[in-house]
């Protein structure tokens, strides 16, 4: 089929799009054209920052994939559609992707409402929706075309609880969490694990994403007399809470979920995030080669910028997509089946990632116990703060 000329190909794809993708997809494949992934995510709107971070991670991974010879000689590329994390737009994008024969797989969306509203469309059309930041426990229950490398909170939170309770010896915890599906699910897993390890939960407070003022919340925390604060937060709100906690005179140990792991957390938090403990999936001095390659490559490509957790998720996701496409080729169903076949894909977050076919998620995230020392994330040396 490599002798189909370009004009025929374009006309063919247009016709296929017009007819609603009824035409067989294999017929328009051409080895000179890149293999195209569709990305649905926020580039404008309130979550725009995460879409930009995705792009950074994707682009780095794609550079490396191309340098290593691409996918059996073909280039891998993505087409990013801005959804503003709005379900109304993500469903339209989903229809666009499923009826575009060039798209072999979809990545995203960012928020659960946007991703899960589009899931029925991807499932019915038979296009894989690879929701690599979708930790909502029901995301992969949308169907056998929904796969996720988002670290399951059932995995991550016990690790954080073990850091806080077993390693730091905290016995009475105040939990502050983002009141979203992610924050709420995480909180429940955290509390269960912490209780199992013998800690007591003094108070839990859920806050909305737009919140900036936490002083009154922190008075409630203070009155409950905890010996440690646990933040199930993103980096911007996590930094705000840490700052205000110090301002209202709370001196307790602060322990935060991996989602705060970002140079922005240090920049926004300043002195207040000194000695904050963070359970993460990787850290800069991690000797693992995949981590060193990722960090060095990222700094080189982005003028010395330190990568953060969302960059890493996107980087891993693109590498996973490449591994899957290598096995599955460009047929959408074969790609779905390839997810079950990929083994031990090198991953910053998991070390090596292999899907659990039942849950369509990856288990066994890596664990690193970090602490902020002198304005930098460092491996915790076991000394109390």
């Amino acid at each position, binding site marked *: 089929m490599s002798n189909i000329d370009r004009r025929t190909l374009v006309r063919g794809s247009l016709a296929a799009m017009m007819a609603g993708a009824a035409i067989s997809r294999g017929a328009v494949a051409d080895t000179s054209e890149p293999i195209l992934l569709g990305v649905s995510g926020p580039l404008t709107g309130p979550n725009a920052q995460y879409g930009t971070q995705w792009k950074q991670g994707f682009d780095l991974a794609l550079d490396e994939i191309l340098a290593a010879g691409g996918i059996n000689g073909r280039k891998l590329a993505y087409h990013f559609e801005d959804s503003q994390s709005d379900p*109304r737009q993500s469903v339209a994008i989903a229809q666009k992707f499923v009826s575009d024969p060039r798209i072999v797989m979809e990545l995203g969306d960012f928020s*659960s409402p946007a991703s899960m509203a589009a899931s029925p469309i991807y499932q019915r059309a038979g296009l894989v929706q690879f929701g690599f930041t979708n930790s*909502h426990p029901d995301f992969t229950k949308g169907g056998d075309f929904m796969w996720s490398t988002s670290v399951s909170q059932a995995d991550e939170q016990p690790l954080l609880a073990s850091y806080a309770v077993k390693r730091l010896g905290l016995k009475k915890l105040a939990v502050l969490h983002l009141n979203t599906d992610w924050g709420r699910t995480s909180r429940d897993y955290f509390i269960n694990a912490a209780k199992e390890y013998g800690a007591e939960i003094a108070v839990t407070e859920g806050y909305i994403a737009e*919140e900036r003022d936490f*002083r009154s*919340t922190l008075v*409630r925390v203070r009155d409950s007399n905890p010996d440690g604060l646990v933040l199930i937060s993103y980096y911007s709100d996590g930094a*705000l809470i840490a700052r205000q906690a110090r301002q209202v*005179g709370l001196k307790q140990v602060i322990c935060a979920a991996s989602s705060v792991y970002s140079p922005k957390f240090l920049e926004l938090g300043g002195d207040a995030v000194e000695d904050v403990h963070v359970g993460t999936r990787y850290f800069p001095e991690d000797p693992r080669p995949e981590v060193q390659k990722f960090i060095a490559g990222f700094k080189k490509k982005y003028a010395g910028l330190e990568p953060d957790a969302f960059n890493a998720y996107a980087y891993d996701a693109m590498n996973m997509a490449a591994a899957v496409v290598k096995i599955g080729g460009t047929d959408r169903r074969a790609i779905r089946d390839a997810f079950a076949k990929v083994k031990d894909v090198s991953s910053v977050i998991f070390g090596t990632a292999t899907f659990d076919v039942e849950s369509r998620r990856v288990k066994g995230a890596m664990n690193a116990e970090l602490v902020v020392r002198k304005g930098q994330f460092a491996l915790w040396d076991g000394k109390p703060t």
Partner: protein
Amino acid sequence: MSSWLDYTINGLIVGNVYALVAVGLALIFGVSRLINFAQGSIYLVGAYIGWVAVVQLHTPLPLTIILVAVTSAIVGLVIERFGLRPLQNSVRIAPLLATIGISFVLDQLVMLTFSPNPRALPSQLPDVRFQIGGGTIGPLDLLIAGVGLTSALLLFVFLRYSKLGWAVRATAQDRDAAMQMGVDVNRVNQAVFGIAAALGGVSGLLVGMYYNQIDTAMSLQATLKGVVAEVVGGAGNVPGAVIGSLLLGLVESYGVAVFGTSYRNLFAFLLLVLVLVLRPNGLFASARQAPPEPLTGTFIAPSRPVRIPRWALLAAAAAFAILPLLPVSFYVLQTLINAWLLGMLALSLTLVAGTIGQVSLGHAALLAIGAYTSALLSLTFAVPVGLAVIGAGLMSAALGTLLISPSFRLRGHYVSIATLAIGEIVSLVILNWESVTRGPIGISGIPPLSLFGHELISPTSIYWFSFGVMVVLALLQGRLLGSHLGRSFRAIRDDDIAARAYGLSLNRYKALAFIFGGFAAGVSGGIAAHLYSYINHETFNTQQSILALTVVILGGLGNVVGAIVGSVALVGLPEVFRIAAEYRILIYGIVLLLLVRFRPQGLLGTM
């Protein structure tokens, strides 16, 4: 007990922060009777100019403040001159839409220039902390309080004792009379916008330093809280805005103290509704003050609607009905499905806002009520989906009317603010009422649409279904407008005193309009729930309410066909501009502004 002292201090501190925005809003409202939705964007611009000054130019604090104030004032003057002045003789509602468009444009410009990543904005004041109660305050708290109080005081003196200040107040009281007395109204407006923008910019700078964090999402939140504080204090009353802000801060802080953090905004908006119902002019309005809105309905000026011949409508309806049979992509169909769903919401809003004059800014709440009703009926009680969607309409009609009824006695902008608050309250109740709504986890696995046992799964069948429902609702609404009831609605909109004199019971008619409108919105929400299969409290947010209002104004208030044309336009435009990637919302904002500028009565005119 010492905790209560801490809660009080914290409430005052955050109230202090709100006051900076509220004062600017109050000033503009006082003169132009306009809720300036762009105030939050000027605040954003100020914060980022401050970042450039502090981080890149290393200016000392006084110079930073002057730089930010001057640049923001220039932005304000540009907005006034090019965005709002051309609209001063058009419909009263056009400037409101223009400020929404301006805020889109400004927010996007900032985002494109500085990237959406949050940035640290370090405070330039020495880091000294003073112990008060259990916590500490820093010099920035004092500076913010100082700026807030000083500006309120200066404005008070300016308005009361300077000649330009008198001109401002005269203009506020009666624009035409002021012009007859030789007041240069344009100069007054310029002065007000300049001052308010300077204040807005400086507040963005200070608040950014206070949290050591600025990001492009801060603008809408600032506007929301500022509007609440301003209205609580009495719209257009500058010292009232300061006291209103402090009160808002206190109520939020005590709300957190008693019920916990997730109830915080619930209390802010309940306070607002309570104040509006009990003292619609705000807590600090004097009894002598003239009513804040005109007695007769100049808020929505009648215009001549564009007459579309019946055959053209029929032809358009037929063309859209057979569209799925033509070779169009599912993407186009899905986009039009979104347009039809928005169209149902717009029909609802154009009835209550356009026909009876209750401009609602919380209409997404009706969608949410419908969506949750339909989802829960079909999931928990196994009601067939077709019936559940009708149930959604009925529930939205009943509950929506009940919730909005306290605002029936309000007029003009106050209705908008009350409905905005009610919309937020509904969303927060959904978030917190976990036993029913499953809170932030949301409801997943909602069954797809089905009719008489046949599942509607293909985009084609969903298209026909939603198009059909919308057409039926539109026809019903067209019948309604032509009936005696429709004429009564318009009589209330145009002159409620005259309408009352003719024996119309205002509340009853407003309730009827909301029942009909609530049904349409509820059905739209219900269908959306089954389409998405997953909903949570974020699915139907404030942006949806603002979008719906934009559609309605764009199409022409009260105009049934206009609502549908507007929906297709506003769903379609951002999709058409997809090619422009990050720039598409910017282009959308500019197109919106141009439409308001050249067709302020809407594409098809007010009916």
